[in-house]
Every structure is written in structure tokens, then in C-alpha cells.
């Protein structure tokens, strides 16, 4: 279904959602950067800057409690996190590079173990996407099979119109239901032209060709020249909409504490460090190789998808300027 909404009605809609007690999460100016965070009012929403981190944290939190334990005398009381505690959420202003990663993550979080922490949040969230009218030279969504207007992963897709307002297109049942619930805010499309979308400068990658090289070059001197500069932090993995590794720790004392799940990264030296002391990825080039392999080979082997949406955040944020699009270009040229 296609509808249209003016800028003013859009803000009113957000305020109405908030007034009803609905949690609305969108790009918000926070602590000097823009992040996807719960909005307190429609005026909080930022639509002209890509958030520093991705939207994955709405389903896969930076850190969350799994359970709590308390020792009461000789008894241990366990208190479990239950799905009702996950609030219904509307995600708004989600860029295509972020929205498209969500169905990609669905594959791994519902594979050999159905991760209720992810899936329950997913079931309770409506994703309203926003097409991009500008990009910078780190963006490369169009190089990995996406585009600045791609509605993949969104329940509703908003495209900015010339003169203000948005074209609204439902992409799923959830999207249809949303339009139905709020139908008095939306109008029929009146033929106003959508704004011209961004055109990221990168050429599309031949992902099959890249994968073919990866299939045969696990050992290759190229990994040293590409990755010796990597210093092994987790910045790229943490800002990435598709990276999903995590660690689980118990924090507390023998009297009580919590079991927590939090983000981990294959770039850390500890990631594959065994209790025996052996580390199969003991040097950084091996760890960086894993990053590229996982995104452009292993995830394809397992789920038929690429674990990258070309958002470019890793490129902007890498302390040593590693450019994944540049690495892919280099591999493609081999």
C-alpha cells in the first residue's frame, strides 16, 4: 500500500505514538554523536546524519542481563529474564544499510538455537525505514547489492519527497497494520516526485568472484599486507549492523550476581584464546582474515547471504584507516 505524509503530520504521528506510551527508537543526538536511542519527543529525531552505531542494538543489545542469581541461606534463587519484559518498539528513521542487516541476522539467530532474546525483540518491533538522499565516500551499499532506497528489512519505507514530507510504502503485514492503525495521519499519494536518492560512488562488487578467491586463498601473503596495520580493537565489529558475536559472563560475588551477554569481536586477541593457552588466531592478520572470510564467504556458505550491507561505518571508525571496500577491490582485482 502506498501513502503520503507531510513533515508536520509525521512529527505529530511520532508524538502521538509517544503519548500513547509506545517506545519509539530513532536517530537522536546523544553525547556528541548521533545514535539510535529511545526518543523523548518527535523533535529529538535526526534525519540528516547516519547514526554512529547501527540499529542492531535494538534487537541485540550492547549488554543485557540473561538471569540473576541470589544466595538465600543454602538456597539459590534464580530470576530469569522473560519475554514480556521486552517492550513493543517502533524503530523510525532506519537507513537501508541498517534495515537490510536485520533479516540477515535473522538467519543466524534462528539457526541451531532460537535466540529468544533476539527473536522476541524482533517480533515486537516495527521497522520504519528512511531512504538516503546523501552519502559520503565511505558508503558502499550499492556495491554489495543494496541501494539507498532499498526497502529490504523495513516494514514501512519512507522516501523523502520534493518539497518535504515522505512517500510511505508498506513492505509487510506489520507495515500494513501500522498504516491501518494510524490511517488518519496519512494521505493518498498525490504524484509529488520523490527526492533524488544518493548515488554512492563505488562500483558494484562481483561478490561471487571475491568469494571464489576467498575459497582458495585461506593462506596468502595478501593477508599480511592488508592486516598488519590492524591493531585488534573491536570498533569495526561494534559499529557494524551485521556483526553479531557476543560473550557471556557472570558478574557478581558468591552471594549474588547476574549473567550477562555483551558484544565481542573477532579482532580481539582473546577471541580464540583457548584455556590451554593455545590461540589458533594468534597474530592479527589471521584475525582480520576471519573478519573478511566470515562476511564474504562463511555466511554465504551457511545462509546464502553476505554479512555486510555497505554502510561504511567500519571504514569511518577504524583507528588505522582499514577500508573494507578497498580490501574487496584489491581481492576482486586478483
Amino acid at each position, binding site marked *: 500500500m502506498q501513502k503520503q505524509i507531510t513533515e508536520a503530520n509525521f512529527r505529530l504521528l511520532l*508524538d502521538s505514538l*509517544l*503519548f500513547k*506510551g*509506545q*517506545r*519509539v527508537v530513532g536517530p537522536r543526538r546523544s553525547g556528541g554523536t548521533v545514535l539510535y*536511542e*529511545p*526518543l*523523548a*519527543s518527535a523533535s529529538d529525531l535526526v534525519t540528516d546524519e547516519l547514526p554512529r552505531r547501527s540499529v542492531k*542494538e*535494538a534487537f541485540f*543489545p*550492547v*549488554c*543485557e*542481563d540473561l538471569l540473576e542469581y541470589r544466595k538465600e541461606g543454602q538456597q539459590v534463587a534464580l530470576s530469569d*529474564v522473560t519475554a514480556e*519484559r*521486552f*517492550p513493543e518498539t517502533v524503530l523510525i528513521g532506519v537507513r537501508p544499510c541498517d534495515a537490510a542487516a536485520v533479516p540477515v541476522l535473522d538467519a543466524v539467530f534462528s539457526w541451531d538455537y532460537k535466540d529468544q532474546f533476539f527473536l522476541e525483540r524482533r517480533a515486537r518491533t516495527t521497522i520504519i525505514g528512511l531512504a538516503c538522499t546523501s552519502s559520503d565516500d565511505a558508503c558502499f551499499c550499492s556495491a554489495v547489492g543494496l541501494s539507498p532506497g532499498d526497502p529490504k528489512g523495513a516494514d514501512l519505507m519512507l522516501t523523502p519527497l520534493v518539497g518535504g514530507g515522505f512517500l510511505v510504502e508498506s513492505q509487510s503485514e506489520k507495515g500494513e497494520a501500522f498504516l491501518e492503525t494510524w490511517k488518519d495521519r496519512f494521505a493518498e499519494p498525490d504524484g509529488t516526485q520523490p527526492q533524488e536518492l544518493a548515488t554512492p560512488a563505488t562500483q558494484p562488487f562481483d561478490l561471487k568472484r571475491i568469494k571464489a578467491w576467498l575459497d582458495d586463498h585461506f593462506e596468502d601473503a595478501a593477508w599480511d599486507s592488508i592486516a598488519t596495520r590492524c591493531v585488534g580493537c573491536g570498533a569495526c565489529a561494534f559499529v557494524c549492523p551485521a556483526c553479531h558475536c557476543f560473550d557471556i559472563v557472570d558478574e557478581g560475588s558468591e552471594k549474588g550476581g547476574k549473567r550477562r551477554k555483551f558484544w565481542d569481536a573477532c579482532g580481539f586477541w582473546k577471541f580464540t584464546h583457548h584455556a590451554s593457552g593455545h590461540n589458533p588466531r594468534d597474530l592479527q592478520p589471521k584475525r582480520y582474515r576471519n573478519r573478511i572470510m566470515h562476511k564474504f564467504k562463511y555466511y554465504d556458505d551457511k545462509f546464502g547471504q553476505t554479512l555486510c550491507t555497505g554502510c561504511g561505518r567500519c571504514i569511518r571508525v577504524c583507528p588505522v584507516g582499514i577500508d573494507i571496500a578497498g580490501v574487496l577491490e584489491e581481492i576482486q582485482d586478483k
Partner: protein
Amino acid sequence: MHSEKQKHDFEPKIIAFVCTWCTYAGADLAGTSRMQYPANVRVLKFPCTGRIDPVFILKAFQQGADGVLVSGCHPGDCHYIAGNFHARRRFAAFRKLLEFIGVDLNRLQFSWVSAAEGGKWVEVVTDLTERVRAMGPMVEFKDLALEEQWSGSLNTPELQEAYDAI
């Protein structure tokens, strides 16, 4: 020093990091001399103040201490010759860092108490305890420990706030 126990609403938790050879012995002397002092202090024995890592002080505050005392041998008397000299520099720097972060330094006391100074031990502990009692519980770290990243937070104060703000 109190001749009879007074009832208080708030009993501060004081953690004392002390060195074995001087302050611990001094505290022991206070005990054997039957000197009375507030029972709020929990004593942790280290070989030397030079072993006391600033991260222990941080942990103490994080785990609920309202006040922290670090005490060792007088300069020149260290059992390990120079441990307390290193500690002196280290803590001079660390307290500046804590102050910069916004911790009230009145909760953190350093002292030299020798093995013969049972009386000084009692004075130092009593003064710190009463000072911290008057300041109230140290809520900063306790409150901080309750904070979560928004995405992992399971109650939704934002919703309530948003509702109240409109």
C-alpha cells in the same frame, strides 16, 4: 571514643588497606590495649602499602564502601625499604584523578601509623568513620552500578519520561 555505644541511622562501611608490619601491628596494639573505636572498619592486610594498587580502592568504592583508609609505615621505616615511598607518589597522583572524576576526597584517607601507634590508629579510624557518617552513604558508585545501556535496560523509564514530558 565512646564510653557507651550510640545508636545511629547510618553505619558507614569503611575499608582499610593496611600494611602488615606497621599499621596492622598498630591496630593490633589498639586491640590488645582494649582501646574502643567504631566497629565500622573492615581491615585488609597487605605486606606493604607499595602493594596496594589504586584499582583496589576503586573496587572498594564499587562494592559498597562509604569510606576508604590506606595506611602504612612512616617514610624510612618500610619493612621493604622503599615500598611506602612508591605508594606515596602513586596515591598523590591517584587522588588527583579521583578528584577530577568527581569523587569527594573526604571519603579517602591516607595515613602513616606505626606499630607502636595504637592510639593514632584509633584516632584515624574514628575521625574517618565520623566524617563519613556525617557525609552519608556514598551513592555515586552504587547508583552507577545500576545504570544500563538503553538497549539492555528492561524497565522503560524513557517511556514514562516521554509520557510525562508531553
